[in-house]
């Protein structure tokens, strides 16, 4: 860890450029957290880059906040110098952190690796970050994945191919709701519940009118798409590696999402039974 990144870069920082560098660093950390990186990875990456740029970092991240202090040791230690090292702190609140995006994470890792090997000028760093931020996945791709996922798990749990197709059909609805409603969602609990009620009611009505479909099997396919199992597993893993607070926050969050999901589907089953 230490000594891996370059020490002397020739980049001299004053307050202004230091603040700018730190802001870019936090941008990177924020995007990493948003795309599903573990806490330790974010902290480690930010520290390494800061080292590479000649700063002494102090990084602390939890799921929705990053705090970084950078100390730039005074460079000029001649007789007229005050030996002034400067020290800068910024914090960043991180929102919208529930969409796992491994392509983005890969790009961010690549960028940080390059920065550690040979520190990029800040302008270029900024440009590359923006380029990564712009690269969003297409809806078509997400749709394809959701359809494949819900179809497979519907059949996996014992549904017929027809049940699978119905689940895939409703996954289209779910992706559509996620894309249109996601922006207006107040919080994830309410939002999960609304999506579950809509999808569940739709499935319930379909299975009542067309009895060839087996309601449990169609529903399970879409429950697999919506359930926060991955978040929950990650939460416990965070706790195991010592990020207790982040783990606990994620655990409680994912449990309430699961309850919201259950409540939504229960209401739907109740309405259409």
């Amino acid at each position, binding site marked *: 860890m230490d000594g891996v990144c370059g020490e002397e870069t020739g980049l001299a920082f004053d307050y202004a450029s230091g603040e700018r560098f730190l802001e870019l660093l936090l941008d990177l950390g924020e995007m990493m957290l948003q795309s599903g990186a573990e806490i330790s990875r974010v902290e480690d990456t930010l520290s390494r880059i800061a080292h590479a740029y000649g700063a002494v970092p102090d990084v602390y991240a939890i799921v929705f906040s990053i705090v970084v202090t950078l100390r730039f040791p005074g460079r000029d230690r001649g007789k007229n110098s005050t030996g002034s090292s400067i020290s800068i702190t910024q914090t960043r609140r991180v929102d919208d952190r529930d969409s796992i995006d491994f392509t983005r994470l890969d790009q961010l890792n690549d960028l940080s690796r390059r920065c550690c090997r040979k520190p990029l000028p800040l302008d270029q760093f900024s440009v590359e970050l923006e380029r990564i931020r712009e690269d969003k996945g297409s809806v078509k791709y997400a749709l394809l*994945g959701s359809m494949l996922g819900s179809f497979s798990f519907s059949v996996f749990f014992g549904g017929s191919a027809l049940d699978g197709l119905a689940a895939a059909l409703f996954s289209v609805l779910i992706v559509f709701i996620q894309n249109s409603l996601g922006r207006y969602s107040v919080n994830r609990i309410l939002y999960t519940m609304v999506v579950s009620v809509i999808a569940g009611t739709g499935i319930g009505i379909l299975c009542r009118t067309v009895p060839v479909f087996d309601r449990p099997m169609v529903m399970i396919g879409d429950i697999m798409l919506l359930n926060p199992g991955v978040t929950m597993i990650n939460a416990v893993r965070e706790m195991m590696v010592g990020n207790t607070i982040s783990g606990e926050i994620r655990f409680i969050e994912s449990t309430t999402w699961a309850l919201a999901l259950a409540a939504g589907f229960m209401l739907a089953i109740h309405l259409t039974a």
Partner: protein
Amino acid sequence: MFTEKEMVQLFMAAAGSMGFAVIFRIRKDCLLTAAFGGAGAWFFYLLVSKGGGSYMAASLAGAVFCGMWSEFWARRKRQPATVFLISSVIPLIPGNALYQTMNSLVSGEPRDAWRWGIVTGLTMVFIAIGTSLVSALFILREKVRR
């Protein structure tokens, strides 16, 4: 050794994991790795439950496999281990148990709901333990090496 239904499950576990890998935007050359990881997880789950193990032991076995699979391929493909872990662990997630819990509650059978609820919770716990165990071992190995 596997029934036809189980073969279908293995195949669907692979396809399902791949579907989620697509949703998570995994790099294209890692998609198949994710798919085989999902099938492997379910393979070990089935193996243990056929050998008479409980669903907890089976989930643990599947999760341990996922952990090792992801650590191995993370090094080969130069990706974080999470990438393969998250996508391959998905077939183990107790979607059916969660549904049964809800269904029992709605149909007024709190006892069944309780039973299924416990299955759901414990399965999640054992998946988490299994995967964390493996990553802890790998972290330890790195530390010893240094």
